[in-house]
């Protein structure tokens, strides 16, 4: 499948990896739908893409809502007539351990509440499911060639302090295998699904963190720097163009290792 002339829907397209993906597709001739919660982020990215001479719409939407998902899928078809690529970048973190102990008594003094668990599952897993489901429905009914992309994380291996996030991201990594298996079972041949599992990436969330902590993180990265969002965008672009990549999740980490040199 070619990027040029395709229609790409990117959730979380207003910043970070989603913004880079949206701009990469626009630069390469795709028509782009930016989905984000923040209208000011949508406006900024839409104007940037407009400046590149691209074709773009922005839809303020919550990916955890079925009605909102139906809205941005319908808007993509209203504006551009089809959907070929859906990238589920919308994601959040609410870090914390499941239990915290009082240092003096050794007893549990705090536990992770649903206020931290549920939004992360809703956005990172249910949101991905709804985006993938409704984009696939449109692609199948429209008979358009399509690629569904989930954004997992290298922390799918299990990161302490991120029980909620890792649980969602391991599911996002597994989703392409199951979806494509079901497509095969149902005779759906025009739509593929892949996952992308980035390592530590140069998004505002990480570049703005304590620089000493960042240095400690980079000590375990063979490449010696954060992954650039544009590098992730190029990998997704390659997945669009290389139809043999399917039903799998690809890591892009710069060589993230456990201390001692074993690749994560």
């Amino acid at each position, binding site marked *: 499948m070619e990027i040029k002339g395709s229609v790409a829907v990117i959730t979380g397209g207003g910043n970070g990896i989603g913004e880079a993906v949206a701009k990469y597709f626009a630069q390469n001739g795709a028509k782009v739908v930016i989905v984000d919660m923040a*209208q000011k982020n949508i406006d900024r990215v*839409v104007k940037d893409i407009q400046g590149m001479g*691209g*074709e773009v*719409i922005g839809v*303020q939407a919550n990916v955890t809502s079925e009605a909102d998902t139906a809205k941005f899928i319908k808007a993509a078809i*209203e504006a551009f007539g089809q959907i070929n690529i859906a990238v589920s970048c919308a994601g959040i973190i609410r870090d914390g351990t499941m239990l915290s102990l009082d240092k003096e008594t050794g007893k549990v003094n705090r536990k992770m509440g649903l206020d931290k668990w549920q939004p992360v599952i809703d956005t990172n897993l249910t949101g991905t499911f709804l985006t993938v489901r409704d984009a696939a429905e449109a692609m199948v009914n429209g008979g358009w060639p399509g690629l569904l992309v989930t954004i997992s994380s290298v922390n799918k291996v299990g990161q302490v302090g991120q029980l909620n996030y890792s649980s969602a991201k391991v599911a996002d990594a597994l989703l392409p295998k199951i979806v494509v298996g079901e497509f095969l079972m149902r005779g759906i041949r025009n739509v593929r699904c892949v996952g992308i599992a980035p390592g530590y990436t140069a998004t505002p969330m990480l570049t703005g963190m304590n620089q000493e902590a960042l240095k400690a993180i980079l000590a375990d990265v063979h490449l010696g720097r954060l992954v650039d969002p544009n590098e992730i965008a190029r990998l997704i672009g390659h997945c669009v163009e290389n139809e043999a990549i399917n039903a799998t999740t690809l890591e892009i980490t710069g060589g993230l290792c456990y201390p001692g040199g074993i690749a994560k």
Partner: protein
Amino acid sequence: MTSFTYNDMEFSVEEGQGRWSITYRTAEGKTGVVGAGLFAGVPADEIEARVRALIKTVFPVGVRCVGPDVAHPLMIGDLKIVPPDVTHPNFIYWDKDSSSSPKQL
């Protein structure tokens, strides 16, 4: 440039080099962009209908009529709860201007 009001928002549609951009201003003065570089090659007399259809999709207004999902009730003990079903054929958006909706007193 064409302007019109929908859902208490003022929309502006501008053409440049055969492509169309849509922006809006809310009643509170907030501004935003719906899209840019759109509808290349679409005949001029079809543009307004395309723009209005897109805007009504992006900014649905008013009440939703939602059919109950009677096939999938939630059971809590003996209590059967029939939730709304957004996939139901009766799930529609009210696509008239909000000024035509009853105001809440």
